[in-house]
């Protein structure tokens, strides 16, 4: 009984994770410029990865595999922002990149 419940939860979690990863990929294609694409990619980075790892943890139970999965999650969540930040900074420093605010309609509400 409890096994079936765990299987169900883990399956739902894996499905949701895959859905978020796909949405992130769709966003990558739909977004108009480099900076907005970064935002779409970070969906795959955070909730996509997180839910997939959660689903795998529910399959693994209280074993060393779970510890390793949590370590993978921690490393991904620590290195992801660093890579994103490096990309964004490189793009801002590159004079060939278009203005990051090209697609802004109204001005920002505060300075």
């Amino acid at each position, binding site marked *: 009984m409890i096994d079936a419940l765990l299987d169900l939860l883990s399956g739902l979690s894996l499905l949701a994770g895959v859905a978020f990863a796909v949405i992130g990929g769709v966003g990558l294609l739909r977004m108009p410029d480099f900076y907005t694409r970064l935002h779409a990619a970070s969906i795959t980075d955070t909730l996509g990865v997180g839910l997939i790892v959660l689903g795998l943890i529910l399959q693994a139970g209280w074993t060393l595999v779970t510890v390793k999965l949590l370590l993978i999650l921690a490393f991904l969540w620590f290195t992801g922002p660093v890579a994103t930040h490096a990309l*964004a900074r490189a793009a801002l420093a590159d004079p060939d990149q278009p203005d990051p605010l090209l697609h802004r309609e109204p001005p920002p509400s505060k300075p």
Partner: protein
Amino acid sequence: MLHALLLWVFCFGLWLLLSGYFDAPLLLAFGALSCALVVFVGWRAEVIDPEEKPLRLRLNPSFIAYWPWLLWQIVLANLDVAKRIIDPKLPISPTLITLKPSQRGDLGRVIYANSITLTPGTVTTALKGDTLQVHALTREGADALLEGDMDRRVSRLEGGG
């Protein structure tokens, strides 16, 4: 010296968890030796950080309360950005803003900047002196950051202790 010792304990704990060998003396000794080698190389390369006080920060109760809150914010932001991607009209309004973070230490600022980047919809693009430059996917996201709720929470976590 204390930092080197802590680094060794951390390395060996990680080695134990990743290897899964708990009762093979020879292999355990090899593991301990290789961790000692890592600490030695780190000491020679002068990358064992003497400034920060990681233990004091970790004992602070708001430090523990911060991570579940951040996780919840990440989930909310994910749902928001996912909804905007699926929306046929693609309702985005990219904005570049400058923030003045109120954290004192380097570690606090880095935690704040990384938290911003980790949350979908906002990316820290520059951290210069005491200002942060943030690119936000929507004006609502930028306004939420300007309100400074996350900033106050990170400051609190480095304050008390």
